[in-house]
């Protein structure tokens, strides 16, 4: 690889200050450090540093997303064949169909998002941050497959600029950027982001069989009552309509396993959020009231975006609570909020997105009280002496 290294070194002066392409330095630096870990050595403090860096952290999350992504491809094809009665498609054809649908979404998401990141890094004079590598993969996975690419591009631009860069970039944002993109589309173009057509490739363009409903389980429950919902097994495996990556709890659990094994995802948040939702579901079952409260508590864990949100969204270290005690509280409250929004809010069948965004805003408050408790312990000790 020394040939490539020589090549990169040779063109480096062009991008340095005074060079012909100095405005593209962040782009050069990002690309060069992608290819080669820089030869920078420690100058102060600890002489040795861990091999772990931001690139590796983000890579682990992307690997964890792969099962959900691959299953999503297959499921796009599967739902398409079901809606159009194409019963003779082999699995590989379904997968390729989905892959070809999803690829442009991923490309648009990365092009727009990374483009903005490069510009922001150049303006600030920072190195390009890797945060968007994960966000850019998350965004296509939480969109309906039929979302137009221009809408995707706008939502990505909105999320990256207003959700992240205005706060100072990766590490400073308050809201999860991927969910910000989703929420932006949800409130700007509600017709394209929910209902019973958008979840299956081809239906919004017309041509689907009459009377075929491609509604997600949550929308079905809302529209036609709970007896219309798919079986728990189907929801667990994920062969149902829904956002690209969110349907299969199995695939998401594989991702969760990877995140927990490597320690990149917070088990505290995943555990407390699951318990929070389950507990709230059980409580509502016990209290009763309307038919939404009667939905079995464990359904909440396998329906809609709960699994995906718990594993990949709520655990975002930047927007979640940052103290370990705070993480338990944050996770539990998020889980509770998911169920409350689902059950008590007739306008939105899906509560995970809103619950996580709401708790993102609350997280600094939770941390504030946890840190204050530590401060109080210290002050008390000071007085005793």
């Amino acid at each position, binding site marked *: 690889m020394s040939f490539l290294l020589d090549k990169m070194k040779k063109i480096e002066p062009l991008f340095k200050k005074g060079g012909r392409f100095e405005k593209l330095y962040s782009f050069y630096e990002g690309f060069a450090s992608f290819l080669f870990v820089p030869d920078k050595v420690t100058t102060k*403090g600890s002489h040795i540093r861990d091999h772990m860096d931001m690139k590796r952290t983000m890579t682990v999350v992307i690997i964890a997303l792969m099962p959900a992504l691959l299953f999503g491809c297959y499921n796009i094809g599967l739902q398409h064949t079901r809606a159009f009665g194409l019963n003779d498609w082999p699995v590989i054809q379904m997968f390729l169909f989905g892959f070809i649908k999803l690829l442009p979404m991923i490309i648009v998401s990365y092009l727009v998002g990374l483009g903005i990141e490069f510009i922001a890094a150049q303006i600030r004079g920072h190195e390009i941050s890797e945060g968007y590598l994960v966000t850019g993969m998350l965004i296509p996975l939480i969109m309906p497959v039929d979302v137009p690419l221009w809408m995707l591009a706008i939502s990505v631009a909105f999320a990256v600029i207003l959700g992240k860069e205005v706060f100072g970039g990766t590490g400073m944002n308050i809201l999860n950027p991927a969910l910000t993109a989703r929420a932006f589309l949800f409130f700007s173009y509600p017709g394209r982001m929910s209902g019973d057509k958008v979840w299956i490739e081809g239906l919004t363009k017309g041509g689907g069989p009459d009377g075929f409903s491609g509604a997600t389980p949550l929308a079905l429950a809302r529209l036609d009552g709970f007896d219309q919902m798919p079986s728990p097994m189907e929801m667990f495996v994920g062969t149902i309509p829904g956002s690209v990556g969110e349907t299969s709890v199995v695939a998401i659990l594989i991702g969760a396993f990877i995140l927990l094994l490597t320690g990149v995802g917070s088990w505290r948040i995943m555990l407390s959020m699951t318990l929070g939702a389950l507990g709230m579901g059980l409580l509502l079952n016990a209290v009763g009231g309307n038919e939404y409260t009667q939905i079995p508590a464990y359904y909440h864990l396998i329906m809609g975006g709960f699994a995906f949100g718990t594993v990949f969204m709520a655990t975002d270290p930047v927007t979640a609570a940052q103290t370990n005690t705070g993480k338990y509280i944050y996770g539990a409250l998020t889980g509770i909020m998911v169920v409350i929004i689902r059950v008590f809010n007739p306008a939105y069948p899906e509560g995970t997105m809103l619950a996580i965004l709401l708790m993102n805003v609350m997280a600094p408050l939770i941390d504030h009280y946890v840190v204050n408790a530590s401060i109080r312990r210290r002050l008390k000790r000071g007085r005793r002496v």
Partner: protein
Amino acid sequence: MGVQIHHIAPVCRGEVVWTLDVQDVVAIGRLFATGFYDRERIIALAGPGVLNRKYHRTRPGASVAGILKGKLAEGNLRVISGNVLTGKKISTEGSLGFYDNMITVIPEGDYHEFMGWAAPGLKKFSYWRAFVSKLLPKKEYILDTNLHGGHRAFVVTGDYENVLPMDIYPVYLLKAILAGDIELMENLGIYEVAEEDFALCEYIDPSKTEIQEIIRSGINLMIKEMN
């Protein structure tokens, strides 16, 4: 040492804590036994850059040139007075620091690694469980001075606390120092820490923040404020 102080008798504002290491106790004992102040101490010559690792008898401030003579491995090396986490970089003719009990020599990490962040990491020692080496049985690793990444904002949470066994929130304290908020620094425990307490935080940090330097600047700011 900061950890022990924190748990036995935490430092409060205006208090002074004196510390002694074993070899200092020996020196004091020797003073009373013989009447001579003799700080001769045993130091270790360590690290993968040394061919013949062994103990030496010497004094603080002594030149390391004689100790290192003929014992260094080939290549670009860094000589450290002290350990790899908190020691001070010195030249091959430098001298042993006043508080140091060892001289460490490790290879400089001034090399480019192709796609290093994606490699499985069989030979990479790490705190994090994101490397294949975690699954392999214990073996010896060679640590060098490469940063292994670029500087980023704080992103990961919860792990700094794991390597700082005190009732202190390291990232909050660091941010308070960066913001120059004196009262918040006091409240978050600036009196109880020294930069060496944060050495492990700095070592594991995937954002490659110069944590010890930030802590020192915070302590200096406090000293300036109190005078």
